[in-house]
């Protein structure tokens, strides 16, 4: 559904008003009640976000970037591998017969359950974090690409054959593009999953990153640090999903009804 300019402006104003009101009440509550002894005010949190003081080895912003880059690397790999496997399983019954049982065993295991194994296998570097993020993103991507490939309109396949397309061309030129809406839906869920997974993985075993910042904040009883970590997780998560939606809008112009 397309909104008019006026409706969009109105929605944006509503969103801004509700966020500002929330922050305002929070600020006033910390200033004029005993809540201030328990939690920091939004202004203090905001100042903390841009502090140049190092927490451990890095500043706060640098920690955020560490987490973000971990996600982007592992998530990209998961998308490429997952889409390929999902489409192949969805389109070729033999590939499905081989990989589906294995995949069905792995799928219900929550990514965080792999942490201990990942650390034992890959040590303490970046690899175990990548592995956990990969697992968190992978399953959603596979399942959605799989559904996409299975719901390809057979009329279009017949039509492509009549026009002279060979079997491998049917896969790349019909099955793949027809599945893109499904793939995107999977990639969006996968992105928020992997963002959640990186924080969890860093909380268990890491020496940098947002998860580590929060856990350290807890052990030194620094409320500002914990709040800043949580706020940053929310902000980055929001930005990532906005970017994904914009990208989807661009790539799926054909999927919208009427422009």
């Amino acid at each position, binding site marked *: 559904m397309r909104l008019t300019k006026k409706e969009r402006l109105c929605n944006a104003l509503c969103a801004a008003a509700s966020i500002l009101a929330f922050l305002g009440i929070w600020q006033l509550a910390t200033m004029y009640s005993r809540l201030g002894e328990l939690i920091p005010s939004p202004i203090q949190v905001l100042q903390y976000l841009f502090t140049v003081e190092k927490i451990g080895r890095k500043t706060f912003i640098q920690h955020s970037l560490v987490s973000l880059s971990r996600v982007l690397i592992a998530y990209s790999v998961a998308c490429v591998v997952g889409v390929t496997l999902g489409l192949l399983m969805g389109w070729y019954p033999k590939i499905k017969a081989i990989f589906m049982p294995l995949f069905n065993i792995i799928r219900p295991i929550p990514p965080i359950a792999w942490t201990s194994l990942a650390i034992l296998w890959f040590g303490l570097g970046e690899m175990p974090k990548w592995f956990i993020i990969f697992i968190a993103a992978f399953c959603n991507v596979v399942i959605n690409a799989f559904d996409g490939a299975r719901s390809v309109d057979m009329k279009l396949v017949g039509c492509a054959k009549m026009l002279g*397309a060979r079997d491998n061309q049917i896969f790349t030129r019909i099955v793949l593009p027809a599945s893109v809406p499904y793939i995107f839906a999977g990639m969006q869920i996968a992105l928020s999953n992997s963002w959640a997974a990186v924080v969890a993985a860093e909380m268990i075993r890491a020496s940098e990153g947002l998860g580590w910042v929060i856990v350290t904040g807890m052990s030194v009883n620094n409320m500002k640090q914990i709040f800043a970590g949580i706020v940053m997780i929310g902000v980055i998560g929001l930005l990532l999903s906005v970017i994904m939606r914009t990208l989807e809008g661009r790539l799926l112009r054909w999927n919208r009804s009427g422009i």
Partner: protein
Amino acid sequence: MEQVRDLKNIIECTGISKEFINERGTTRVVDHFDLKVKENEFVVIFGPGQCGKTTLLNLLSGLETPTTGETVINGKKVTGPDPERGFVYQTTALFPWLTVMGNVSFGPRVQGMKKAEWEKRANKYIKLVGLEGFEKSFPNQLSGGMRQRVGIARAYCNEPKVLFLDEPFGHLDAQTRYLMQEEILRIWEQEKRTVLFVTNNIEEAVYLADRIIVLSNCPTHVKAEYVIDMPRPRNYVDPEFLRLRSEITGLLDKNME
């Protein structure tokens, strides 16, 4: 421009039958269907709903294999889909993620034609169907009639010997339907091809055809054949038009009883 009539048969289909086997036993959908079509002839296959018209087209085009009999098109036996045979569907079946240009040029591109060449060819047929200026539009931005034009241009772009049209205007509103009937004749006059046009609309059949093949109910075989030699463009209320229309319709009604 005087068209030289080539008398050779481009489609020769002899004794085609098709049976489907399901849990209730064997169902014969097509029964000993024979058809000969001359080059550049406009043949309309007319039959009641659910009489196996689509199955018949699938057999002729090679999407399905007949139980018995064979079809020879342009000297080659039909064994599977072939870009020599173009198809236009009722539901248009355009690729929604491709623009008009992408859809029309699909055939030449998958067959490895060079860009300069397929672009030239696609532009020619986009122009032929009257869609200049819409090259970059996606199918969901077009009206039903325009989508059907894209479907026709796409089928033409492979420069097939034979065009199969499977109730191509069935989903269009009456007004657009009349317009498209005139358009398909104009396109066909401009770029002559052998056309097999399937319809369940008697007016459409009489308006378009050089020859009408009337099908029986299931199992399908040829019930009657009419050569229509009225000059084009034909008039829907011409006495001869009305006579043919009621004669062929009467044939069907008896058949339904």
